[in-house]
């Protein structure tokens, strides 16, 4: 402990260098945490789906509709507690860049089925269900466009041609952060009035009486429609989300390789600066050895110095990542709902910092320990 002032004096001798090196480490770990969080958020997105809910979609591809008549038949399958359906609407608000999810849904059963995931005030729910041209909107989407409750908004249809005006009658909050708050849901009947033959379920959602029934229900549903014109593919919501996430392609590989490159690049910076410091102090090492500092002690002192920089940088970088994303509600335009730096990522970041300290301190520390006093004193830079 009594040597701490010495370490501190060494660190503050080249203040600029210490600050810059610490900041590089901080930037590297900030970047590492950000990239890794993309991966963990995608994984979490794949995990959130409930095991007690199932998605029934067309076996041909997700863009195909299923007949509305399936609703009653699905409800009759043993093990199914509730059924609802929705369809992708894909409306554009003002500018195609303002992308968000909009669904036409069988509204009453939809809200009922998702009631545990959505917080929607009872009076708003009642008004929405009464009014055919009403819609409910996620809190985040409301804030993004500055909409107010009761406001009329007009979406331009990309699939269903024309302008569609909805009155916002409800604002929901997601109970689980991974459930998107960037969505708009309305009554499918609005489209039905204009295009009766075109609005059909894009997918059905089933709630099971018990999660363990999932395989049996999936088999029952798929075999029921196997030889019809619209065969189905049924899986748990979790499996559905997981499959959806694979559509991004090899994101984890990309993020991990970049993360490694970043960490390695900064390792070079940190190691370089430790070595510069060590070289400049060769004479001092000689003096210290002459006055009786042991090899071991000198080794330790350099390592402590390297660790201070690495860990200080880690705390800064990881802390910034943790403080920045979640509280500001960052979600990459809604693509990564619930983006957050997990504890696992923080632990990995700290682990990297320790490795960084070892790797950057080891060579100069060993050098300092190995040097003989005579050699060191003769050293001329």
């Amino acid at each position: 402990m009594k040597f701490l002032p010495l370490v501190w004096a060494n660190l503050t001798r080249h203040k600029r260098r210490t600050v810059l090196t610490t900041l590089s480490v901080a930037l590297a770990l900030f970047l590492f945490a950000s990239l890794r969080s993309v991966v963990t958020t995608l994984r979490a997105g794949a995990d959130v789906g409930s095991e007690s809910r199932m998605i029934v979609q067309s076996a041909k591809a997700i863009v195909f509709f299923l007949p509305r008549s399936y609703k009653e038949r699905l409800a009759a399958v043993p093990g199914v507690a509730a059924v609802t359906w929705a369809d992708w609407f894909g409306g554009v608000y003002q500018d195609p860049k303002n992308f968000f999810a909009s669904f036409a849904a069988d509204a009453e059963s939809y809200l009922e089925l998702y009631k545990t995931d959505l917080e929607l005030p009872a009076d708003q729910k009642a008004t929405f269900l009464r009014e055919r041209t009403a819609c409910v909107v996620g809190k985040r989407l409301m804030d993004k466009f500055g909409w107010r409750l009761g406001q009329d908004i007009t979406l331009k249809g990309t699939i269903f041609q024309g302008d569609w005006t909805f009155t916002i009658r409800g604002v929901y909050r997601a109970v689980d952060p991974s459930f998107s708050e960037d969505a708009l849901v309305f009554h499918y009947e609005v489209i039905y009035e204009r295009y009766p033959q075109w609005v059909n379920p894009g997918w059905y959602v089933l709630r099971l009486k018990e999660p363990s029934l999932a395989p049996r229900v999936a088999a029952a549903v798929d075999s029921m429609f196997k030889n019809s014109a619209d065969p189905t593919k049924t899986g748990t919501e979790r499996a559905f989300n997981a499959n959806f996430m694979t559509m991004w392609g090899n994101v984890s590989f990309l993020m991990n390789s970049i993360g490694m490159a970043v960490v390695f690049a900064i390792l070079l910076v940190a190691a370089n600066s430790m070595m510069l410091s060590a070289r400049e102090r060769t004479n001092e090492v000689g003096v210290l050895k002459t006055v009786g500092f042991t090899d071991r002690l000198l080794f330790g002192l350099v390592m402590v110095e390297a660790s201070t920089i690495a860990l200080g940088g880690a705390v800064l970088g990881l802390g910034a990542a943790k403080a920045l994303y979640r509280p500001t509600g960052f979600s990459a335009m809604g693509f990564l709902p619930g983006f957050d730096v997990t504890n696992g990522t923080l632990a990995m970041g700290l682990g990297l910092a320790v490795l960084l300290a070892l790797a950057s301190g080891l060579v100069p520390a060993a050098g300092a320990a190995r040097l003989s006093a005579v050699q060191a004193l003769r050293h001329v830079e």
Partner: protein
Amino acid sequence: MKIPLVYNVRSLLRRPVSSAMTALGVALVVGVFIAMLALANGFKMALVRTGSPDNVLVLRKGADSELSSGIGRANAAIIAALPEIAAGSNGQPLASPEVFVPMSLDAATGGGDRLVVTRGVSAQAFEVRQNVRLIAGRRFAPGRDEVIIGSAIAPRLAHSAVGDTIHFGGRGWLVAGHFSSGGSAFESEIWGENEQLMPVLRGEFYQVIALRLRSAALFDEVKRTLEDDRRLQVDAHRESDFYAAQSTVLRVILNFLAVFITGIMAIGAVFGAVNTMYAAVASRTGEIAVLLTLGFRPRSVLASFLAEAAFLALVGGLLGCLVALPINGVVTSTTNWSSFSMIAFQFLVTPRILLEGVLFSLVMGVLGGFFPARRASHLPVIQAIR
């Protein structure tokens, strides 16, 4: 008077480890920078090459992708009768009414399924889309359950070899051939005859009509004619612009990532360069004082140290280019969110991207070298020489 560059090179070589580490740091940043730009560029080029400026795509009014469009047979006939359309070798107008649907198909490896665009085209399509070439087998025969598969997607799908039967839409389809199209997004599609695919896909609707005009200059006229026709309710797009726009969402994400990630990395690398150069200046105080005493102007000393930093970074930049070059041509795949289906494309490293990488490294070097160089040029000579 200028200080010769060889002085700087020799100085760098006197501290080989430190110089190498700094250059390597820059190399990694430039390597990542080039790789990410090559990814964004490859994706963009796949879509840009898909469209030809001589072609017109007609979609339903308001549809922002082929996926969300729909045009009935009667309207398709009206559109194909436009006098501005070029005539094909068989004397028929070069208009290809097409059906367009992503289908779930089994992946070649790892199980699971992939959404792949299935496009039903007319016989005219091969004259309208002139970049499509068969590379194996033959074209699908009219009136038969046959398809041809794009060369980028074929290795990623099960049962996709020529002569195999691939199953989708409740039927088996003989794979008659494979085709390429100069790296465009068509290579990630399956093509069959529109009349065969229409019933298994989405009923009596085409999604898009591709036209080849007698001259690209007629586009504005055709666009006006089509969009003013109250019967049709369609939008006309220049094909090249339309497909380029389809790449926007993903390209914006990739470019943002490239700038965000390499920007932060670059700051770290600049810090490293600053440290190295300050240390260089500190250890060469005596030398610098001698230079100044000899009559070299402070400006020359500043330029010399800046050149040293820039040279160091340049070496790193060139190394980064070398490291990133092998990624050129590597095929990767992702989902094209506007058609909701898989698109396979290549990393595309262009000379322009390499040049940007090298310039980027120079900027890092100059930024990192500036303050240390200024310190060197401002050294108080008397003190320094003691």
